């Protein structure tokens, strides 16, 4: 037992000092470290390519997404339809390129909301304790307890028409769904960060910094936060997958995007009953979600190792 409780995380203290002395070259140093993480670099390239593909792809692959062709139903990949077709004979490549914009945007937006809101709430609660902590945790519990579906119904009902006037029907629903999915992902991050803060703020290196006269914001930003980012990065990467899937689950329940908008999750959902005789339909969206998750995770790992000065590369 002795080891665990008395252990001095001296490494962290060192980390702090190193960070400070090499302040000037920190950015460069981080880039150097990140570059060494080969998988992360490859992943970053692939993810960029995917984003470019969904952003520019529809310009190159100009098959309409809703072009119904009953003579080409459930066809496997071919030159005219590289990803095959679905049960109405619509081109899956075009649909995936189009839907990918939504899926990637929902995933990334939800991740950013989760990380930013979660980290801020968790950090503030974790450092200030007392009534601020209690209040913030009340909000967290409230969000955890709120049932997503009725809330989404309510929000769509309240805001759809006004948003439709402002930005058009599809984009309006998009904003609402991103907002709702984002609003429901930050709570685990907040609690994780808060728990890390509880543990870290009592550690010797924080005490030391405090004794040296560091202000609380400085303590948080330079000492505690960097050390509590491990679970945040994991949570963020998992959130991308969860958000993409959550969007499809919403569509499955009749909420979310109208079913004729081919998000990846939606295509996967539509394909599931045809799995035994048209596996290509499920394969491509499944692989796309997997690839997104995989690359974001490796980038996350890379970032984590970059930010973790203890790691010897």
């Amino acid at each position, binding site marked *: 037992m002795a080891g665990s409780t008395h252990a001095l995380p001296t490494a962290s203290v060192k980390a702090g000092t190193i960070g400070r002395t090499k302040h000037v070259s920190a950015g460069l140093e981080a880039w150097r470290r990140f570059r060494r993480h080969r998988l992360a670099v490859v992943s970053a390239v692939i993810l960029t390519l995917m984003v470019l593909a969904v952003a520019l792809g529809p310009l190159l692959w100009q098959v309409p997404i809703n072009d*119904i062709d*009953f003579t080409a139903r459930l066809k496997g990949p071919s030159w005219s339809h590289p990803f095959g077709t679905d049960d109405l004979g619509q081109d899956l490549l075009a649909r995936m390129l189009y839907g990918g914009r939504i899926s990637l945007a929902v995933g990334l937006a939800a991740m950013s909301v989760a990380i930013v809101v979660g980290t801020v709430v968790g950090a503030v609660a974790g450092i200030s304790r007392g009534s601020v902590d209690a209040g913030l945790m009340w909000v967290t519990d409230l969000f955890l307890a709120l049932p997503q579906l009725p809330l989404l119904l309510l929000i769509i*009902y309240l805001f759809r028409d006004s948003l439709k006037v402002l930005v058009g029907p599809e984009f309006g629903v998009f904003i609402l769904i991103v907002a709702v999915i984002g609003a429901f992902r930050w709570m685990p991050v907040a609690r994780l960060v808060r728990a890390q803060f509880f543990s870290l703020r009592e550690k010797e290196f924080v005490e030391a910094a405090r004794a040296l006269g560091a202000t609380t914001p400085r303590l948080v930003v330079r000492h505690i936060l960097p050390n509590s980012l491990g679970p945040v990065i994991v949570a963020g990467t998992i959130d991308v997958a969860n958000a993409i899937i959550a969007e499809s689950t919403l569509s499955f329940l009749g909420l979310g995007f109208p*079913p*004729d908008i081919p998000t990846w999750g939606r295509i996967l959902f*539509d394909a599931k009953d*045809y799995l*035994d005789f048209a596996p290509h339909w499920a394969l491509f969206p499944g692989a796309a979600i997997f690839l997104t998750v995989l690359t974001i995770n490796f980038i996350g790992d890379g970032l984590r190792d970059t930010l973790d000065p203890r790691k010897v590369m």
Partner: protein
Amino acid sequence: MNEHQLRGLIAKVKTGKLSRRAFVHRMVALGLTAPLASQMLDFAGVAKAQSTFEYKPTKRGGGGTLKTLFWQGATLLNPHFAVGTKDQEGSRIFYEPLAGWDADGNLVPFLAAEIPSVENGGLARDGLSVTWRLKKDVKWHDGHPVTADDLLFNWEYASDPETAAVTVGSYKDVKVEKVDALTVRVRFERPTPFWADAFVGTRGMIIPKHLFEPFKGAKSREAPTNLKPVGTGAYKFVAFSPGDVVKGELNPDYHLPNRPYFDTIEMKGGGDSVSAARAVIQTGEYDYAWNVQVEDEILKRMEQGGKGRAEIVPGGNIEHIQLNSTDPWTEVDGERSSIKTKHPLLADPAVRQALGMLVDRASVEQHIYGRAGVATGNFLNNPERFRSKNTKWEFNIDKANQVLEAGGWKRGPDGIRSKDGKKLKLVYQTSTNAPRQKNQAIVKQACQKAGIDVELKSVTASVFFSSDVGNPDTYTKFYCDIQMYTTTMTEPDPVKFMDQFTSWEISSKDNKWQGRNITRWRSEEYDSAYRKAEGELDPVKRAALFIRMNELVCNDHAVIPVVYRPKQGAISSKLHASISGWDNDLWNVRDWYRDA
């Protein structure tokens, strides 16, 4: 088709030139119901057809468990509270009506000794009353005898507004009186051609007076027998958990010999249609699955295994597109789609006609609904070949373009037509449901090619079909240009179905959008035909009136019928069951049996 032609057809049935079934099908295709068609034949004195269903078992019981799957499980077992079909089905295992409807629209007696007719004195010639006689010696599951008092009680129970029964519509406008211990007379306020509503079919199940009497009116919810039914059916209650499972066991005192065949029955709820179909057709784990809405492509592949098949029974449910007669985008006196306005685009017959030609019904049938959705124009003008494709409806983009062009709608630079500065843009709404969205996509694509810009909108079903006044997305408000949904017409008589085009039923703010006329379409000729049909006692004349009304609506394109939706169940190849489109699936579960 007029009255004269109808009589000609009936004569053909009489002489055997046309089969009874073919006649019924043809009437259904004209927008009537099978019960009404068979009523015409009865009235004309055509002998009843023998039921094709043959019950083979020679002793009661011994069949093991009958396992059925309902992707929506029953949530309550009091037939007077049944919110949906699923609840009626659950109740139907235990409760019986006086009579039920078979697939051809004939009445089949259950608790009634016989079906009332003018000949046997059951039916008054003036159409003001019907007398029902109960079968002798029928007992409730707890041993009490079934008497006329039970029928009387059901009428009082359901018609009491405090009970909040959903069956109130069938009972509130009639008077029921006891004639003797086993006989009751149902009296109508006006001559009523369609007399078989109260105590018959889906809303006619009879509950026992001695158990429900203390729970009439406001206390109705507290009756313990709401959850533990005591009925007269072939199966007795064993267990129930709402939304999950209903279990029953053989009733040893059932009032028909050798029935039922199964020792126990199980109705399992939940899940989705596709896996329900798999459990019946692919693995054979279950015997019957209710209402499977599965793409035909998938069903056909499942059927190749040979363990089961899809059972398709004709009914009258119809998926249709409604065109708004009023302007949904202008608010008048606090409501949109007000009857004081006219739709800026759809008021032009050319636009309505073109839209009718842009619905690719054949593809919708073939690629979305399969056998469970038969393309229809609701009007067939070729009596030689039922379901002929050579009918008044057609899918023709070129012709639609010509019609629009001739109507003065010219294409703009963006390909969208316009006239007098009004762009041809329509918002098309429906409830969220995969086949409907595919249907929308097909219509939208055709419209694009004809220069009509269609914006699709889908609303969650529970919101679309809700009745809250504050909600702008309900189908009764119809705050958009066109909308699509299915109206169920499993009802035995079309009179309540057809009132949705009468001018006094127009949905508006004044009636809190509770009017049935959603399209807000009006026609004086229609109104007077409807009034006539309500009191017309000759079923043939009445049928001719309904057919005329249907023509009026369809020819003016107030609605665009898309597909008929027959009932589609999944059934094990060993199970023998006769499903009816005019009653519950389990209406004659007492006769179901399985090959050993």
